[in-house]
């Protein structure tokens, strides 16, 4: 069984393990799994070893240690890391060296974490399978022919393989929760505004949130405690005190009302009876832990996908305008004026899915269409928010599917964008409402892992993590099996 972040940190504090050893082990495993998983766009051995030696020096001199001291972590390549190439999975940024670190990266390193590498992702976080990366797809550690999910597929894959206990991802419509579900790990999308977006390359600004992807709930709670909080560099980060999420972890669910979403149950029952059965069993487990199940409704959630695919592309069409080859990143020179250069650069630099969404968004914002598309989408977003308010009047958390299927095979959906978009059916409404949601391992369907989604009111991550922790400690689904990559890794 792989070591969690808190186990590594405790072992380092007790001097049973050095940070250098922890970093070396993680880097060696990352390297050896790379041919099968391709979870990383770039490993950062020098950075990790430098930080590890700093941690070891602190241990030696008896100085206080940060909450993540000596813990190897992997960071999605969407976060700027000072002095390191940061690509967002795109050719257009293949040579972009970030001149500063994202606030979350800074906080993680200050807490003693060792960043061993930048993980693969769908280009600019647009995708649900990690196949839209300009640098080749990542594979699922539980099924090497399967996708790891996306867009935070690299972080999910490497944590799922046990290479590092903690990965950093971003979630715009499900990009942390869906891959977490596919790779049998915990993935947390915090409340919009809970975590700073500064230094995180924007896809859809009103939806993007950074969050932890970890082997267990405790590591998620610990990581969130480190990265959450107001950042003066991000006006949309909210100044709400950050509670001690680790202290709030619980082992029973007495007095907790868990909402079950009627519309979602109908939907999953129609699409996959095995999945429906797994979730039914999960709800029963919650009940056994003392929770009271109540029916709730999210009547507008079914419009979530359509709403999302207007708002997110609209914002991305503007956010991605800056990649023009003039100041940084790739430039395709040639004849003609500066506009010709822009066009060549963007034509060569962006992949198909990114172009598709830029075109969608440009259209949705156009004069004469704004009210019908973007304007109306914002109205539905408000209705979806209200759905959650109404539901949370009846319950403390919502439990529902994270996904409608386990991981699918590579290439299965690449020719059908809408089928790919549907992968986020159960995760998008929470993103639109801005409420926190996580995915926690809930068992296996056709031998592949599947996650349970727990959703809470805005800024009630402590409640959400508490419920997930109780469920995890009672079921231990993730620990019951071993990812195939570790078996084949031993063989090779």
């Amino acid at each position, binding site marked *: 069984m792989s070591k969690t972040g808190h186990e590594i940190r405790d072992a380092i504090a007790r001097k049973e393990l050095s940070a250098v050893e922890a970093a070396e082990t993680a880097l060696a495993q990352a390297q050896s799994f790379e041919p099968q998983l391709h979870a990383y766009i770039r490993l950062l051995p020098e950075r990790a070893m430098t930080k590890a030696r700093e941690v070891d020096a602190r241990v030696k001199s008896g100085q206080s240690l940060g909450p993540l001291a000596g813990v190897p972590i992997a960071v999605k390549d969407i976060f700027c890391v000072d002095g390191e190439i940061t690509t967002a999975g795109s050719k257009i940024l293949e040579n972009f060296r970030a001149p500063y670190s994202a606030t979350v990266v800074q906080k993680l390193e200050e807490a003693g974490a060792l960043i061993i590498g930048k993980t693969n992702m769908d280009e600019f976080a647009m995708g649900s399978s990690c196949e839209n990366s300009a640098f080749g797809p990542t594979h699922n550690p539980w099924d090497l022919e399967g996708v790891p999910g996306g867009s935070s597929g690299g972080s999910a894959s490497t944590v799922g393989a046990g290479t590092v206990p903690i990965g950093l991802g971003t979630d715009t419509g499900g990009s942390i929760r869906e891959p977490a579900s596919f790779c049998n790990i915990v993935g947390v999308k915090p409340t919009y505004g809970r975590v700073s977006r500064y230094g995180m390359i924007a896809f859809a600004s009103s939806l993007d949130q950074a969050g932890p992807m970890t082997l267990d709930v405790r590591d998620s709670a610990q990581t969130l405690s480190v990265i959450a909080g107001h950042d003066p560099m991000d006006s949309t980060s909210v100044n709400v005190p950050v509670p001690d999420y680790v202290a709030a972890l619980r082992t029973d669910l007495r007095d907790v009302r868990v909402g079950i979403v009627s519309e979602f149950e109908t939907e999953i029952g129609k699409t996959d009876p095995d999945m429906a059965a797994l979730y039914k069993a999960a709800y029963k487990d919650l009940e056994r832990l003392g929770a009271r199940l109540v029916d709730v409704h999210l009547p507008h959630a079914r419009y979530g996908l359509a709403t999302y695919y207007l708002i997110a592309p609209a*914002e991305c069409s503007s956010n991605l*305008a*800056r990649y023009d080859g003039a100041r*940084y990143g790739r430039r395709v020179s040639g004849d003609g*004026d500066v506009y010709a250069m*822009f066009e060549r650069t963007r034509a060569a630099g962006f992949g198909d899915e990114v172009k598709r969404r830029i075109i969608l968004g440009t259209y949705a914002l156009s004069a004469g269409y*704004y009210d019908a598309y973007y304007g109306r989408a914002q109205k539905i977003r408000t209705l979806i928010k209200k759905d959650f308010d109404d539901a949370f009047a009846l319950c403390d958390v919502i439990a529902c599917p994270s996904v409608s299927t386990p991981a699918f095979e590579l290439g299965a959906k690449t020719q059908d964008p809408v089928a790919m978009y549907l992968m986020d059916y159960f995760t998008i409404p929470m993103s639109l409402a801005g409420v926190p949601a996580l995915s926690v391992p809930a068992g296996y369907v056709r031998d592949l892992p599947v996650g349970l989604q727990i959703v809470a009111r805005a800024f009630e991550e402590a409640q959400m993590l508490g419920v997930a922790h109780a469920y995890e400690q009672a079921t231990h689904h993730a620990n019951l099996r071993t990812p195939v990559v570790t078996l084949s890794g031993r063989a090779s």
Partner: protein
Amino acid sequence: MSQQTPVQETTRYEAVIGLEVHVELSTHSKMFCGCRNVFGAEPNTLVCPICLGMPGTLPVINRRAVEFLCKTGLALGCTIASHSKFDRKNYFYPDMPKNYQISQYDMPLTTGGSVELPSGKVVRLNRIHLEEDTGKNIHAGGHMAASDYTLIDYNRAGVPLMEVVTEPDIASPEEAEAYLLQLKTVLLYLGVSDVKMHEGSLRCDANVSVRPAGSTTLGTKAEVKNMNSFRSVVRALQYEIARQEEAVRKGERIVQETRNWDETRGVTYSTRSKEQAHDYRYFPDPDLVPLTIDQTTVEHWRSEMPELPLAKRKRFVTAYELADHEAGLLTEDRVTADFYEAAVAASKEPKLVANWMLGDVRKFLEKHGLTLATSLLRPQQLAALIKSVTSGKISGKAAKEVCDILVAEGGDPQQIIEKRGLAQVSDESAIKQIVDDVLAQNADSVAAYKGGKVKVLEFLVGQVMKASRGKANIEIVRAILVERLG
């Protein structure tokens, strides 16, 4: 103007002008980042990842810029919005780091208000909104199409920019100039901008159309850009109005377009730029939260407002009994007005202070290439100088000499007078002695005077002054001469 038929030669036309003025606010830092906001630094030295639009960066609103704009709004009687927001204006241009400009679309910080011109004319304002400035393209070949390469200076990118939009209330190029001057004066009083058109901290675009005099419908407008001084605004508008009038007379159709002013050739020409076809796809900037401005803050700002130029001008006319044009000149900027009032307080001579400031002080400032702000002349010194004249201590001519020195070097007027021996002789017995000497030496002239040639008196006055080396009090000299000549 869409009619194709030529109009009667005798029809008179009137111009309808609306101005869009961009003003760079003189805040310490830029609009959305901490970079310094100053003019003239080495290219690309006042930049950071945020104003360069680097991946992952986010804007944070400069509250001071909001305050500067709202204070301008308060000065011009605008309504300050209690709720406002920023929007993205999307278009590709190499001097714009993000390829969108953060601006305000449908919820500007202020609406309404007006600028009152000295003539009494009121130019209504439509709105004032806040946005970020772009960088500057420096084309190797003068303009982009003809250049091998273009250099971009991003020092200006992200500088707070306030856009003041008028209603189409301006009727002539001269009125446009008067509007700009008045606006400039207000902005200088508020201290919210340097308002230097040649440095680009004030830029002006004009929407111009013509229509038959007395008509109430608006003609098709052209937007005139690239006017770099108040004078070029006047010239460009004169040209554009004449051009449109001539076209309409010929029965031509005026096209709605953007026209650039060519300072050298003295013409406007159609830009036919790509920009014209643009759909800016405005939408609320999701990186910024909506702004709320509470009444307490507005009242606090209001309490900090200085007396405004036009109010001051009117007060100067009544309190100091100045002519309106004098009051206008003395209230052109705050330094001049404050200097005037301080000098009046010290001398109690409002009229004389005005004469000095608009006359000799001005002349000597110009001579030495100085302004009231840079000269060492202090109001108390000017007051003391004026007192020396009224008390008869020095002559008007000597006072000019002292004034010249004060403007150039500063110092104590009394010491200058003494050091240069400029004090006037008013002691009657001393003057009588000189007069008697002069009369004795000019017996012919005395005889001529007595024979009826009164003009000779002035000659004798001149001789006495000469003998006293200019220091005798001329009034006393004349009185004694008349007395002696009986």
